[in-house]
């Protein structure tokens, strides 16, 4: 029994560390190969406190966690700030891991490489599992908050995340801190279980175990990594003569999974009714394998024939596996009606809670829900509702800065002004002294042959790259030196030529992610899913998102995974997400690309609607000439980064320079 207990405790300890890494690597998308270093910090801190200073166990653990978090911030800040590409970052973490280990070896307090024996054995089955369950709850809560969504967004697409105003550094640090804290907790528990630690325990092998757990379990899930690590601990124990083969097993598994099933066991899913059978199958296989050995030995001892024993043992193992699998499927089916009733019950309950607690929902919001009308083509005409929504959060400071510039007073005052804008990439001049003005409320088209610098202009405005020369004035402010998140906060939103959605999030969550500035509850409240604040805010964000989806006609797809949307709908989603940022200026980069004629027409209608109903200023890059010509009263033509023509669609169509740019000199000569 003590043996089983040992295995279970090990599973819990490693699972906690893996949970941490799952948040960082699985969700934020940054690979850490030195996570064992944080476990080491937690382990040594807690052990030194309990061993030398007789600090009570949980206090020591807590201090270990705190120190791990601090160390991670210390290490993370310079590394994350450098914005390394993913494999360089991983290697830097490896370097840190080794460096921490060497420092511990030379530290007298930690008794160096000889290790720290005699640590009191405080970790029990009870408290490790209690902490594991707590950790799981906290992590799941976290991921359902705006903080969690920001991190997932960064993991999915850091560029897009910045483009919706999510600053990378603080959020990545948050994710790192959480994961380091959990690793530190795990280390402390480990030390007080094995009662002996030395720096070499916290080696690359340990980091690999945890990393393999995340990769094989599924990056984007919590259930997956926990299950994977459990398997990693349990299965080698079933074949105990093979401790050394355990690592061969991990290595091979890493290669197999990353090559053929990078989603791992659970992909982006958590445990739910539908993948319950999967979990049962895994449990079944494990159970079958664990019965294999004892059955084999039992048969050998009573009958003695090896082959016979093998067959019987194999049959037993197979039977158990199949049995568990069936059990899982059956359970899943049986639970279906229960799940339905549970969800509807929960929905009704939460409604009742909210309506009786009398929160301050503005009249405007309630009114807006009633003002929703259906137009014949299915697009809900609720766009008016967008800007009537009372904001429950104070306006950001950047918007206050722009208060000097009052909207709508002077239609002719440009909302956007580019002066002599310049950008080079090495020897290539992408934008060459471009200047133009955009009036407020204008719908401007921007066209030009491929490589003429159109997207670069957008990238300069939204501060994806720094400007090499010239200025950008937005609503009178010089935003040239501003960073991407500041530009978003000032009121500029954009879409991308090659769609950048957060694929693993649902359609609804994609829009919700962009509403991150409007949900205000603290991190602590988020972790605890504090009943007074969090559900209300979340509900409001969800409703907002639904409304925005309705604007673009996607409300029925709300719960689909964004990556499963057909192409045309993905474009619409990007627009909805951009609208969620409450922009004053919307930059649309080839929104009609890849759409068929019917979809293109729908898009034209949508853009018209957004433009008219909101008075948004819009710049539209397009290659679909019919789209541009039908939408834009004024069109700019770019070639080689320079403005070569400007005017109405008719003027542009006849302009020789434009034709020359598109068709080339010789062809133009023929055409003329």
């Amino acid at each position, binding site marked *: 029994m*003590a*043996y089983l207990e*040992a295995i279970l405790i090990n599973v819990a300890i490693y699972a906690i560390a893996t949970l941490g890494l799952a948040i960082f690597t699985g969700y934020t998308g940054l690979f850490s190969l030195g996570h064992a270093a944080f476990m080491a910090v937690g382990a040594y801190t807690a052990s030194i406190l309990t061993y030398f200073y007789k600090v009570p166990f949980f206090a020591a653990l807590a201090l270990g966690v705190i120190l791990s978090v601090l160390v991670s911030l210390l290490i993370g800040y310079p590394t994350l700030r450098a914005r390394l590409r993913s494999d360089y970052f991983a290697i830097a973490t490896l370097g840190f891991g080794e460096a921490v280990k*060497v420092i511990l*070896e*030379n530290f007298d307090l930690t008794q*160096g*490489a*000889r*290790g720290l*024996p*005699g*640590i009191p*054995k405080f970790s029990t089955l009870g408290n490790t599992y209690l902490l594991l369950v707590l950790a799981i709850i906290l992590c799941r809560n976290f991921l359902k908050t705006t903080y969690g969504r920001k991190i997932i967004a960064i993991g999915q697409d850091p560029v897009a995340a910045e483009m919706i105003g999510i600053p990378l550094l603080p959020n990545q640090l948050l994710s790192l801190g959480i994961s380091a804290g959990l690793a530190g907790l795990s280390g402390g528990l480990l030390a007080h279980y*094995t*009662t*002996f630690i*030395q720096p*070499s*325990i916290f080696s690359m092998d340990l980091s690999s175990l945890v990393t393999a757990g995340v990769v094989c379990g599924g990056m984007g899930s919590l259930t997956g990594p926990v299950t994977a690590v459990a398997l990693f601990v349990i*299965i080698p124990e*079933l*074949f105990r*003569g*093979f*401790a050394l*083969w355990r690592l061969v*097993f991990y290595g*091979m*598994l890493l290669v*197999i*999974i990353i090559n*053929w*099933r990078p989603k791992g066991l659970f992909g982006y899913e958590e445990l739910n009714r539908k993948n319950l059978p*999967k979990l049962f*199958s895994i449990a079944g*296989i494990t159970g079958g*394998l664990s019965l*294999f*050995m004892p059955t*084999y*030995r039992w048969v*050998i*001892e009573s009958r003695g024939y*090896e082959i016979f*024993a*093998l067959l019987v*043992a*194999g049959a037993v*193992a197979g039977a158990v596996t199949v049995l568990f699998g069936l059990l899982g499927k059956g359970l899943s089916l049986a639970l279906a009606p229960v799940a339905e009733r549970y969800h509807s019950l929960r929905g009704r309950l939460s409604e009742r809670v909210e309506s009786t607690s009398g929160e301050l929902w503005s009249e405007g919001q309630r009114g807006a829900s009633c003002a929703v009308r259906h137009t014949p083509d299915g697009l809900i005409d609720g766009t008016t509702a967008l800007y009537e929504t009372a904001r429950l959060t104070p306006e950001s400071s950047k918007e206050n800065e722009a208060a000097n510039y009052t909207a709508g007073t002077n239609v002719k005052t440009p909302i956007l002004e580019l002066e002599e804008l310049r950008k080079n990439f090495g020897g290539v001049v992408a934008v060459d002294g471009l200047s133009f003005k955009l009036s407020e409320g204008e719908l401007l088209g921007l066209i030009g042959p491929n490589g003429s610098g159109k997207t670069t202009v957008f990238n300069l405005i939204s501060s994806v790259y720094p400007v090499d020369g010239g200025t950008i004035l937005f609503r009178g402010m010089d935003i040239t030196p501003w960073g991407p998140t500041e530009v978003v906060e000032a009121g500029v939103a954009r879409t991308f030529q090659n769609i950048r959605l957060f694929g693993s999030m649902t359609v609804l969550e994609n829009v919700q992610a962009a509403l991150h500035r409007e949900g205000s509850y603290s991190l602590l409240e988020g972790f605890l899913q504090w009943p007074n604040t969090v559900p209300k805010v979340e509900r409001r964000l969800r409703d907002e998102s639904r409304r925005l989806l309705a604007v673009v006609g996607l409300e029925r797809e709300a719960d689909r995974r964004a990556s499963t949307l057909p192409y045309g709908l993905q474009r619409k989603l990007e627009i909805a997400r951009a609208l969620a940022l409450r922009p004053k200026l919307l930059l649309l980069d080839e929104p009609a690309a890849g759409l068929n004629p019917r979809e293109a027409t729908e898009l034209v209608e949508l853009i018209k609607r957004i433009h008219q109903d909101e008075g948004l200023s819009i710049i539209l890059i397009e290659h679909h000439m019919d789209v541009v010509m039908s939408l834009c009263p004024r069109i700019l033509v770019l070639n080689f980064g320079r403005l070569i023509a400007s005017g109405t669609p008719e003027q542009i169509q006849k302009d020789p320079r434009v034709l020359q740019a598109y068709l080339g000199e010789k062809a133009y000569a023929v055409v003329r």
Partner: protein
Amino acid sequence: MKRIGTMLLAALLVWAVLGACKPAEKKAAAAKEETIKIGHTVALTGPSATWGQSEANALKMAIEKINAGGGVLGKKLEVIAYDNRADRVEAVNVAKRLIEQDKVVAIIGPAQSGVTNAIREVNNSAKVPVIATTATNPKVTVNDDGSVVPYTFRVCFIDPFQGTVAAQFALKDLKAKTAAVLYDVGDDYSQFLAKYFVEAFTKGGGKITANEAFRSGELDFRAQLGKIKTGKPDVLFLPTMQKEAALAAKQARDLGITATFLGGDGWASPDLIDLAGPAMEGAYFVNIAALEDPAIQDFIKEYKERFKEDPVLPNPLMAYDAALWLADALKRAGSTDGEKLKAALENTKDLPVLTGKLTIDPATHNPLNKPATIQQVKVKDKKFVYVKTFVTTD
């Protein structure tokens, strides 16, 4: 999922089959009668395996002899051995398994000081005596405040003695005036043996020209050796295991260092000669016992007949002695109870063992009057040659 699942399943089943083949022997060991179980934690694989395998063999021999003589307390002794790979973490696991699952009454081994330290908490809290075979660091049985570690014993000499022997040998026999040291900072044994050598050498009037360290696992010491070379020492003391000693000797000679090499019992594995080659010709080291010692010739003959090779000293001797000591203590204690066994072990006087008479100091759990031998490495003849014996008096 299906394809991967089947692949994995197939792989695991293959593994299961492989795994099935191994434990077949274990079932045969299920003795029907009751036995007194003794644990053996030993390095059966890894760099220390040459000693460990030999130790395991000798222990087997010893136990069989004891059982042939009627066993202890009317029962036969049974050895349960697990491989600790000389790794501290593994040793902790092994100790737990021996104590909690196999319910041994005592444990023989480990052979390394660091490893014995690592399992201290485990065996002491469970009140199961541990008799280390060749763990020579004083801290193994005596705490910093002078109190004794209640359930840890040893059957070999301690490093302060070994360091003194080495230093005095260097001063008197090698006529060395200066010495340099290169030790492993990650190993209790190496670090302290170096310290005791330095103390004794300086006390005896010698001068230490350099005291350099390297990190465990290092292979290239030429930077440190370059520094050592400038001091032109007469003797280079290498209180490390055979692998590092061999490398250091090779590299030192490469650099043109002409000092005589001197070491401790960590050198005593035959593969020292293979690994070091001619660099080690004529080097000296301190050991717990030597093959030429007349008192143990019977044992050596028996061992050779049975296992067809020389025992790799000193471990097999120590394990044998430990077995004799344990059996005697069990008889005197009259039971397998931990506390009674501990008391019996502590109060051992003049017990005849292979290496002489064993008397234990209850205050330190260390043997008194343990001799040390000096051996010389003869690469060309591929053997260690006995030079002389030192005896301790405290």
